């Protein structure tokens, strides 16, 4: 349940940006959340409204882009999407040790005015 803290950080970053850009409202936040980030998107949504309340981001929209976990197979020289977090190449069954995407936890963009 650290989603509330993360959401607070996302909203703080958005408000800081709005203030630095001379904007008075935040209308939209777009997050990028990887499958291996350990974060539950529903819990982020739940926290979002509470965290925005009473700030210039109140009423803003939260969009979450899901990023699947993608590994690199050095044997096949190709990327593959990991099912069930087991980094086993579906072609050669080699276990990959290189996770290329899926740990993202980013504030991708904000919409302000």
């Amino acid at each position, binding site marked *: 349940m650290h989603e509330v803290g993360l959401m607070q*950080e996302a909203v703080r970053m958005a408000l800081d940006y*709005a203030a*630095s*850009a*001379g904007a008075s409202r935040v209308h939209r936040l777009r997050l990028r959340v990887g499958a291996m980030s350990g974060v539950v998107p529903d819990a982020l949504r739940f926290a979002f409204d509470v965290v925005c309340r009473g700030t210039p981001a109140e009423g803003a929209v939260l969009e979450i882009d899901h990023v699947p976990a993608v590994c690199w197979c050095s044997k096949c020289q190709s990327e593959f999407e990991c099912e069930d*977090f087991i980094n086993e190449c579906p072609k050669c069954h080699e276990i990959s040790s290189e996770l290329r995407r899926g*740990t993202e*936890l980013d*504030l991708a963009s904000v919409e302000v*005015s």
Partner: protein
Amino acid sequence: MCTECGCGLGESKQAVPQPGAGDTAHGTAVPSTDHHGDEPHDHPHQPPHHHDHADSTLHDSDQSKRQIVELNRSLLTKNERIAERNRGFFRAKGVFVINVLSSPGSGKTTLIQQTALASSGRFRAGVIVGDLATDNDAARLRAANIPAVQVNTGTVCHLDAAMIEQACAKLDLDSIDLLIIENVGNLVCPAAYDLGENLRVVLLSVTEGEDKPLKYPPLFHSANVALITKSDLAAAAGWNRENAIANLRKISHHAVIFELSAKTGEGMSAWLDFLSSRVRPIR
């Protein structure tokens, strides 16, 4: 066109900055929130003012002043910055740091206590213990003459780099070679928080079940060392060793695996030798 009153204003779509504008957009955002900009018009725009779009109570035309700006910043930036600072500080102090993670009750405190005591001839260990409440773990360690600081996180489910920074002020780092951080018992949240450690050690006790790594992949994936603890209870718990190690290998593929019992001392020497080999070079 304004869909409410047909005044013809507010035609333009949301302003989208050009590529590359992300970092330099600070001066370009339009600060005004005046309705329809500065152009005066004499009809009122008062509620009722319903819109189909659910995202805003503002008038459509206000969208002309909206800016979408790409930030692409990690939500953990602040923690990562403090963690890197911690790492530099520990390095300057010549202290090797391990972050010990597991579910509650898998034997973190016993392992830490026995590690600190058994290694006393080789290196000196200090401990930072994280729990939601109570001083019990730190008191238990201090009673065994191990320098220990308790961090009470309140309702927070993990330790973060700033908590470690603060706790270090209460610990004499010059008198220790190894700092052991006992994280809050939790297999989910601590995974995301770098504390500035050199090694991440994840425990899996034989009483927990062999499929824990499959159930909590992010944390087990982040492990540098996986310790199978309470090995003395393996038979009583019906522990399927082969299955457990196969599961660990699937998820924690970077991890060095040890099997031990801090209670009986079985397997402890291999773990201590490994730890000693990592602590010594940093001194």
